[in-house]
């Protein structure tokens, strides 16, 4: 189909006074309501800006299925560090299996979890190989633990992390607003 030069448009160049009069109401209430695009676009732009500013990277910390985090008020912002997750059944380091919760409960004593220790040491050595020996290792690890896990498992993971070169342990929690 050939492309034609645009012709003159109705209502813009051809006035059609009777149509304008009808639409405008002709002294009565108009039949067509106008939509103010300016305010609508303003609203959309403000919404986009607000959503972009409130977009948080802290949601990127993947919480394994089956982990229900406890809630706390007096918290600190999250940091980027290796994540050790403890579900009701197993221990994971950044998603990789690193121990069994059942065997710790069965043993009924505080212990160093060897698989976890090996994986954490590997991560520490990898960090040092990347950053160089001159830069001190931060030694920070984040524990993502299900709220019903017994203290024996928590203490065992805590002690293992400390012995693997991660003395600064942080417990991941769901932030609560401050009560008045």
């Amino acid at each position, binding site marked *: 189909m050939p492309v034609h030069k645009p012709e003159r448009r109705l209502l813009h160049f051809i006035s059609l006074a009777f149509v304008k009069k009808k639409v405008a109401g002709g002294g009565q209430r108009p039949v067509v309501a106008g939509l103010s695009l300016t305010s609508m676009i303003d609203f959309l732009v403000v919404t986009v800006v607000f959503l972009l500013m409130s977009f948080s990277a802290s949601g990127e910390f993947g919480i394994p299925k089956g982990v229900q985090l406890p809630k706390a008020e007096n918290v600190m912002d999250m940091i980027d560090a290796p994540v050790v997750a403890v579900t009701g059944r197993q221990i994971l380091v950044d998603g990789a299996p690193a121990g069994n919760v059942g065997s710790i409960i069965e043993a009924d004593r505080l212990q160093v979890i060897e698989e976890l220790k090996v994986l954490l040491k590997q991560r520490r050595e990898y960090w040092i190989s990347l950053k160089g020996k001159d830069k001190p290792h931060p030694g920070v690890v984040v524990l993502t633990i299900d709220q019903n896990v017994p203290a024996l498992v*928590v203490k065992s993971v805590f002690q293992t992390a400390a012995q693997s070169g991660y003395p600064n342990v942080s417990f991941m929690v769901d932030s609560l607003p401050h009560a008045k």
Partner: protein
Amino acid sequence: MAGVDVGGGGGKKRAVDAEINMIPFIDLLLVTISFLLITAVWTHMARLNADAQVPGKPSDDPPVDGPKPKDLHIEMRGTEKFVLQWKQGQQVVNSVELPRKEVKIVQKSVEVIRFPDLAVKIAEEWKTNGQHAAATDEKTDRAVLHTDNKTEYKYIIGVIDALYSTQRDRTFPGGKTEKIPAFNVTFAVN
């Protein structure tokens, strides 16, 4: 069609002002809003800090003789009471007992454990016995948590949260002052 046209051109000449088509612009904004709303994270993750107290590298400097720091030991093994003890090394300096009154709140089917009485008592104890209250002091008092092996993790977090409700001012070298927890928590091995 929605658009912005300021007219011009006079019928013969080319219009000096171009017409901006608003529909794709509005479409773009709506798609952006939809994307941001769908990908938004509505739960806010945070952390509670703890210190595993691992000894550092051996130093050539001779050990400094002086009074040992006072630590607050929180005994939460009993179901009826908390025992708060200030210890200097192995010596008990002060000991207080507190009935264990927990407040359980259910939020979106998640049980939240709080110890408001414990938080108040810890704040009082720190005001009396705390050693690192100065804003320029970079150290914090240490709290040692004693818990039995069967206590559920949510109760431990409840106690740590009560501990961290006591806060103090800390002035950093640049002159900036912030509120920081008055205690740093660690676990007792027993």
